[in-house]
């Protein structure tokens, strides 16, 4: 499958694709000029396009003044009125119409939220249609192809004044005590949900916030859609991980999942375990992990709390994807490991302690002090400390050499003092083992030093040999030239052959 052929499917790539030719020629300024373009217009909307012809809106009577008999009819008319879309990029266009729609939406929201008995069956299709027409749209290409959610301001949805009210209406509609899932499920179907999920890619955080709450309610009320929703979220994540690396709503979706996982029945279904192993754990590889790491870690811990047997999968998965060069991510991984260790069962801890503490030792010796510091903080956690103490015989030998070495070598004074504390803790835990390890460490160190000395001697020997050899060769060449010059006059003589000096005998067993 040629996923590389997919670019236009990721909102960022078409933009990059046309900045490329110029970037080749005039590298350095497309980025800044992009930014400038962004500042000019940080609102975007592709909503308006679908409006074929503009309709003039006329204000309808207020809902609250309507006689009961006409209430539903009027409600319906207002819903239809709200299906008209307006151009918000042109902020002065049709101000009157915009105001009428805003007022109508406000009324609808209030009516659904406060009065009972409004939601009768014939209104469902109208309401869902109004919602669909307003919120479902192809999200516009990102204004900023290198959009970094942590650094840059998001592009906001221009039609938000209306859109917000539509979302608000939808939410109230779902939360209304009159809401009947059996009626709604005919209109809120799989296609509807799929479009709803696609909107999570919106760059506007306000929109994603609404979507999150709404999807949560839909999941809660429409049981028939649950499996489908989970599956589609899976697909979004898999595509995010392996194809596009771009999706704005990962954190929001994970937040919903957190509460979904919370409600999983025991024993866990194969589907859910698969989701953990094949989706949640690989999500840790994402470049933009920092944006959704808190939510992701929460989901992972939820899984563990549900079923302790998945612990080993999780830890081994994290170790497999442990960041090799990105220290910022390493700190996040360490944070997640601590969250996991906080709730780990001692029996599970024993199963993963070896690979885990090898990694922790590696982190302690990281030259980046934040990584080392984060790892050393584990020893401030009482529960973790008790686990370490129980398994001191295994763990101490794994980390001892690192602790000892780093305590002597680390450039950062805070790290050195933290390590002293850790060493002290270990000494108090098991002084016998500690002393043994100290002794063997010193022996090992001596051996290492000896090896090092031998190695450097060997190199020196080789260098001397090479130098002597070069001397001999130049001498030989000179002699040969002399010989040739002389041989013009005198009969040919045997060429002078210089013997090479012997190699230093130490070289017999080099230990590079």
């Amino acid at each position, binding site marked *: 499958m040629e996923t590389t*052929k997919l670019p236009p499917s990721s909102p960022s790539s078409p933009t990059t694709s046309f900045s490329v030719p110029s970037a080749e020629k005039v590298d350095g300024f497309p980025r800044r000029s992009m930014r400038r373009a962004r500042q000019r217009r940080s609102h975007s909307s592709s909503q308006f396009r679908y409006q074929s012809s503009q309709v003039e809106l006329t204000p309808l009577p207020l809902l609250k003044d309507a006689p009961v008999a006409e209430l539903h009819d009027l409600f319906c008319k207002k819903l239809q009125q709200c299906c008209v879309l307006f151009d918000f990029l042109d902020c002065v266009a049709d101000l009157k119409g915009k105001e009428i729609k805003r007022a109508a939406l406000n009324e609808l929201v209030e009516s659904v939220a406060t009065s009972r008995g409004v939601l009768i069956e014939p209104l469902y299709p109208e309401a869902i249609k109004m919602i669909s027409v307003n919120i479902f749209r192809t999200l516009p290409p990102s204004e900023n192809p290198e959009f970094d959610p942590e650094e840059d301001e998001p592009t906001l949805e221009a039609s938000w004044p209306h859109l917000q009210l539509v979302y608000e209406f939808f939410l109230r509609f779902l939360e209304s005590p009159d809401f009947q899932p059996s009626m709604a499920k005919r209109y809120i179907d799989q296609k509807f949900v799929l479009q709803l999920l696609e909107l999570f890619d919106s760059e506007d955080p306000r929109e994603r916030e609404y979507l999150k709450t709404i999807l949560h309610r839909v999941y809660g009320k429409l049981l028939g859609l649950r499996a489908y929703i989970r599956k589609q979220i899976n697909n979004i994540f898999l595509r995010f991980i392996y194809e596009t690396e771009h999706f704005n709503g990962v954190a929001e979706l994970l937040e919903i999942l957190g509460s979904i996982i919370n409600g999983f029945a025991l024993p866990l279904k194969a589907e859910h375990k698969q989701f953990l192993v094949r989706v949640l754990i690989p999500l840790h590889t994402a470049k933009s992990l920092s944006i959704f790491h808190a939510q992701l870690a929460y989901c992972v811990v939820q899984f563990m709390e549900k079923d302790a047997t998945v612990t080993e999968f999780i830890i081994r998965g994290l170790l497999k994807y442990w960041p090799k060069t990105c220290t910022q991510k390493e700190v996040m991984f360490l944070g997640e490991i601590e969250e996991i260790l906080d709730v780990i069962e001692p029996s599970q801890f024993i199963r993963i302690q070896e690979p885990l503490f090898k990694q922790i030792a590696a982190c302690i010796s990281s030259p980046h002090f934040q990584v080392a510091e984060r790892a050393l903080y584990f020893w401030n956690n009482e529960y973790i400390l008790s686990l370490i103490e129980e398994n001191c015989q295994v763990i101490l030998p794994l980390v001892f050499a690192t602790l000892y070495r780093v305590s002597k070598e680390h450039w950062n004074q805070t790290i050195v003092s933290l390590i002293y504390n850790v060493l002290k803790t270990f000494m108090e835990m098991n002084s016998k083992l500690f002393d043994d390890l100290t002794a063997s460490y010193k022996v090992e160190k001596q051996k290492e030093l000896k090896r090092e000395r031998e190695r450097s001697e060997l190199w020196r020997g080789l260098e001397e040999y090479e130098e002597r050899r070069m001397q001999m060769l130049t001498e030989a060449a000179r002699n040969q030239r002399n010989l040739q010059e002389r041989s013009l006059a005198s009969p040919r003589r045997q060429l002078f052959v210089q013997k090479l000096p012997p190699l230093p005998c130490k070289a017999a067993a080099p230990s590079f």
Partner: protein
Amino acid sequence: ASSRCGEDSHGKLYKNDTETQLYSLKMYSIIHIFYSSYHLWKYTIYDEDEVLLALAEQLGNFTMLVGGPEYVHCLLPPLESLATVEETVVRDKAVESLRKISQEHSPVDLEVHFEPLVKRLASGDWFTSRTSACGLFSVCYPRVSSTVKAEIRQHFRTLCSDDTPMVRRAAASKLGEFAKVLEPEYVKSDIISLFTALASDEQDSVRLLAVEACVSIATLLPQEDLETLVMPTLRQAAEDKSWRVRYMVADKFSELQKAVGSEITKNDLVPAFQNLLKDCEAEVRAAAANKVKEFCENLPEDNREQIIMTHILPCVKELVSDTNQHVKSALASVIMGLSTILGKDNTIEHLLPLFLAQLKDECPEVRLNIISNLDCVNEVIGIRQLSQSLLPAIVELAEDAKWRVRLAIIEYMPLLAGQLGVEFFDEKLNTLCMAWLIDHVYAIREAATCNLMKLVEKFGAEWAQNTIVPKVLGMANDPNYLHRMTTLFCINALSEACGQEITTKQMLPVVLKMSNDQVANVRFNVAKSLQKIGPVLDSNALQTEVKPVLEKLATDSDMDVKYFAQEAISGIQSLL
């Protein structure tokens, strides 16, 4: 053993069957070792995607190592498992290797070993194996029996309506390729329905891949079927509600145009292209703008001019003042190409105003794209027409804050100079060329010296002597040592073009004088320059003037000066 491909090299060695068997046995042991080490890789230490990627790639070249085509099928199991991993690059590589070794299977082996693997992948549980299967159908289809062919078609059909969008995307991206290996009757009966379904998929990421397939499918069908089988879908794609799909149509427009032929282009694609040029998303407009020249070039000749003038040009005019700079810059990179198509009169009347508007655009990229393509227009109307309007733009760009823009302008100087002639150049551009010599970016100074050389080649030594050389030599007394070095670099570049007389009489004294410079960098560049201009000087000058100076430099206190002086002495040795 008769079908062994190692026959040429090994075949003669086997006198009887026993030897052949022995050989096979050896091969199998190699295969065994290979397998066990493979399992070691896969399941123990190196479960790293990078390693798996390398493995997937190498296995594609393993045919000879496992005993030739007869045994190539033993590479299938490891590749099969690599084709199911999650990491896309690994999977793609495994599929690539599988495609490669599929060609080395005999038709029998293909049915016995390869095709079952494709089927297994196609019906795998996890989406990864099914996506991989999509890439394998087209390589085995042409070489299997008709019953197996029917099965393969069925599998492909199933994957096109797979549950997961990832698989549908994979199928859609291979649709065109698969259509090419199918018998024509099946293209009509099978492919068209799949194509239509994928092109109206609920996910835009699938729909846009169908657009790509559209190109191959359209080329496979006879002209009379296109209208009914392909065009409805293509029309729909050009007006898709997702900009990504429209972008794809715009991006593939030239290919589509060639595939559907001139008649449909005239009736359908011209209005579609107009719409894309007016699309509400800048991305789509930019993609379409990029295709303007190609599209026009490929229009049927008989009424090309009329179509362009009445349909395309009005849209192009609007794009010139588009709100989005990327659209304008995409247009600027191709718009000059239209002049060759439209001819001199139309260019002057209709295009020239557009070029000039773009030359004055606020965005430097747009201006640069126009300047970079001047030669197209030059062929049609000659640059003089443009020069008056060009000049302000050039002067402005020559002082642009971005050095790469300045660099691009410098590179066009010799062309402009050639077109404009000496007088115009002296009057308007000479000062610019000299100003670049003292630019604060080295790359600009370097390009400026190179530019001077090309100018001298064009205008001749006499011109150089009167205009450039005095100014260049004047810089030798500049307080800034970088400028003094520029003098040397200019001399290096110019000496040959200026000839012996100017070099000996005017340049050499300056260089020699600079050997007393207090900055070591200048001194060793003097040494380098002397070596460089050596071939232009006569041996008398070398002997009496150059050599003594170099010998003096060879005793300099600075190590580098000494080194380059010695280099230069041995360099000019042969000239003496």
